[in-house]
């Protein structure tokens, strides 16, 4: 019996090996490899799998257009399995073993933090497509998602100006993005004259599923006679039970609107949105945006994934922008060499899907419009407000005391991610 098993397992092993070799031999020498570092299993698969598919689609389309520098692109997909140290390991594997020209990946801040030293050490390129807390600018990383000033601050402005909100609940999951965003918002709101007692801050653990008490607290807080809104940085899975409880306890958008920064089309797909109509989200892209570029993108996506009901979302657009920027920068530099790309990509401007152009700034953040959308019954958002122009991603928030004097500029003479304008010195590594 043992012998039999050994035989079958050897067969399975050799089959798998053969497969990997088959993939290996298919790799011609004249391709450019692009790494995709998104979790396909574990807790983050829920969000990241879509981004892997989006990247595969973009690469396929680029190859149809003839590739880059006359070479075909080849995707290298790995699964860091929502395991943060594994992200670092896989990043190292991609750069060192597979020799990819650039990596598109990560979702959570901690996964980005985990791979940062690897990209720095091996001089790789990472395009990070998700809204995040800011307070970072790294030479090897391009932040194509929103910084807090490209999402949170405009959303609060909207609520204050248009909805007349005077009392604020800042509800978030207890991790660094909500903590930082709420710190920024708290400082921002106070600078706008909101009294501290009109701000309630609440943190919950990841995957929190029993929202009864907190929703009741919000209701109580909101019945103080002042117009109240909830700014939600609640993450991932915790949103569905939160919104369900909200709907069931009868909190309507016209009473206490909730504006979320982590809830997009993908998240709404798992929800009955009828009771949530009117609640808000702030993003830089919505699937419902009516432009030709977007219609084309959605059609391509549906064709690629073979499912008309699949939605598009903001991080997908971020990858779309980031990928196109990388392609243009490589074409401009004439090489995929990271140093050359880092130099050539600043200033590159590509069309986004909302009818304008996004440009890579010297701080490795990009310019984006900010849109506020209301949740509709069909699970889409309807844009109710947008910034008049593009907003530049602000890596160092002006509302946090220690980051106020810092700026980042990765162009030649300065080339620094945390230049202190008060001391006139680059605060971290680099020029001393």
């Amino acid at each position, binding site marked *: 019996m043992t012998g039999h098993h050994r035989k079958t397992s050897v067969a399975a092993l050799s089959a798998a090996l053969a497969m990997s070799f088959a993939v290996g031999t298919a790799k011609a020498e004249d391709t450019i490899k692009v790494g995709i570092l998104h979790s396909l299993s574990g807790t983050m698969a829920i969000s990241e799998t879509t981004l892997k598919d989006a990247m595969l689609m973009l690469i396929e389309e680029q190859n149809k257009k003839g590739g880059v520098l006359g070479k075909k692109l080849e995707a290298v997909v790995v699964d860091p399995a929502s395991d943060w140290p594994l992200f670092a390991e896989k990043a190292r594997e991609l750069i060192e073993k597979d020799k990819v020209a650039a990596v598109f990946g990560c979702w959570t801040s901690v996964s980005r933090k985990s791979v940062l030293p690897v990209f720095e050490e091996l001089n790789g390129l990472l395009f990070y497509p998700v809204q995040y807390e800011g307070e970072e600018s790294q030479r090897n990383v391009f932040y194509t998602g929103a910084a807090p000033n490209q999402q949170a601050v405009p959303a609060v402005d909207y609520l204050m100006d248009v909805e007349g909100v005077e009392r604020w609940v800042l509800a978030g999951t207890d991790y660094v993005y909500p903590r930082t965003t709420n710190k920024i918002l708290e400082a921002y709101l106070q600078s706008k004259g909101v009294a501290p007692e009109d701000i309630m801050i609440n943190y919950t653990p990841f995957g929190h599923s029993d929202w009864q008490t907190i929703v009741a607290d919000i209701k109580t807080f909101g019945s103080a006679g002042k117009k109240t809104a909830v700014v939600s940085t609640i993450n991932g899975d915790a949103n569905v039970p939160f919104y369900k409880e909200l709907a*069931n306890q009868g909190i309507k958008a016209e009473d206490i609107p909730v504006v979320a920064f982590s809830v997009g089309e993908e998240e709404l797909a798992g929800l009955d949105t009828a009771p949530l109509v009117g609640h808000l989200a702030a993003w830089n892209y919505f699937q419902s945006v009516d432009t030709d570029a977007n219609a084309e993108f959605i059609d391509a996506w549906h064709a690629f994934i073979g499912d008309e009901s699949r939605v598009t979302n903001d991080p997908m657009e971020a990858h779309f922008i980031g990928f196109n920027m990388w392609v243009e920068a490589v074409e401009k530099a004439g090489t995929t060499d990271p140093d050359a790309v880092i130099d050539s990509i600043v200033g590159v401007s590509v069309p986004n899907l909302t009818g304008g152009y996004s440009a890579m700034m010297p701080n490795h953040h990009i310019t984006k419009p900010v849109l506020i959308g209301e949740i509709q019954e069909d699970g889409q958002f309807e844009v109710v407000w947008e910034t008049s122009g593009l907003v530049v991603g602000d890596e160092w928030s002006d509302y946090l005391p220690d980051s106020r004097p810092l700026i980042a500029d990765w162009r030649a003479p300065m080339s620094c991610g945390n230049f202190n304008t008060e001391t006139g010195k680059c605060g971290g590594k680099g020029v001393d």
Partner: protein
Amino acid sequence: MRLAGPLTFAVAIILSLAGVAHSQEKPLREIVNSFAEARNFNQTEEIVAELGATGDPAVVPVLRALSEGDLHVRKSDNQVFIVSGRGKTLTIIDPLTGEMVGEEGKRALSKIRVNNGLRRLIRDTIGGLALGSPDPAARLRAARTLISNPDASSLPAIEAALEKETDPEVAAGMMRARAAAILVSERPDAEKSEAITAVAAISTQDALSLLLGFRGQATGELREQVDRAIARVERVQSYWAMAQNVWYGLSLGSVLLLAAIGLAITFGVMGVINMAHGEMVMIGAYVTFVVQEIIRTSAPWLFDWSLAIALPLAFLTAGAIGYALERGIIRFLYGRPLETLLATWGVSLILQQAVRTIFGPTNREVGSPSWMSGAFEIGQLTITWNRLYIVLFALAVFAVLLFVLNRTSFGLQMRAVTQNRRMAAAMGIRTPRVDAMTFALGSGVAGLAGVALSQIDNVSPNLGQGYIIDSFMVVVFGGVGNLWGTFVGALTLGIANKFLEPYAGAVLGKILVLVFIILFIQKRPRGLFALKGRAVEA
């Protein structure tokens, strides 16, 4: 713009109460059709105000449709219609007569956009119109709205309505609305003093915030009176808060009970550490999703029955998987409980990934039937229907299981096998079959839990993971081998969690509960309801 709301609202009320027929200056239909010209929210707002000013109840369906996003403009002729239906073609309905006009492609129509401000205005306008409604229930609702959103300018309208009111209950509601409005008005102190008493008698959160708001401007005797009233309302509120916490605790406890009760059978009775228990719950939730999906596409009228249909299917599906699991893996591992842990952990990974492969990694939408949506109030206790049904469902499942275990021959066989396998076998009980059926029962119950949990949580491949540790805690805390222990354990932990949460926060509360369980197990290593006796130690 913020001023416009209450003002037009008041006008609307006065007009409607005066029984003025809609203004003849402009026919209603013309105003309705002018929505087609609105270029932004402000213009839409003006039209709503205009409609409200007509005081004609016929505008109510139009406004309601606008608020719900069902008011569309036909692009070809700028006519405004109410639409219904989903998909590419929509049924169009005349906004004023309510007659079906025909069908129109989605692309030929454009939706009149609304935002929260508009929805608020529409709600207030409809509310005002309703104060003169022939339906007493509608009048009462309108009065309640006015208590929550008091406005001095509506005072004359309320008083006018009050004079005509014949229904005593509605009249009481209007008295309160009047008192609330007086507090924010410029009326003399004597009236305000009366109003304070009336508002304090309401004792709700709204009343409290009204009084707190008034406190700032009150002086002298009024100030003292309002302070007393506030203290009184706060006291009442704290009692209700206590009751509310108990309810939250029961509701959380019932969720824990549902999640754990299947485990109480597989783990508690059979001694199998089933780490795939959470995945059985997940499968139940996915069965619900599939049922709803089929109903949505082929029999939408059955939607309210979807959960009832899903229940037996979830039980059978999860039960069948449990049966297969027992026959295929677990039966080889009896007597090695810690190894069942490893094998079932492997099974849980496989099931998770299988569901991820079949249904995709994202959350799937499971809707709530209408009878499970919303909430009702007992006094100031807000009880959401879905939580109430889950509590009842958990109790029912528990009762049925108790019955099965204690009153049926299968239950007797099960207990016999658990207590003395060899003896049971010698008496002719087919122990392997009983094992498999017991495991299937435990898994099936987990599937039932999945149907219920689909109503409050994500339906995603990770669903089960969130409950597995809690379930084990409940079973171990309650005492293995005892369903009552699981029952008491679940409710105790639920209530403890909810009483800790307001003071310690959600995370610390949970940590404290875990530490408490760890310490408790030291004190009573076999749980709350341990079977005492000369337990034969191996």
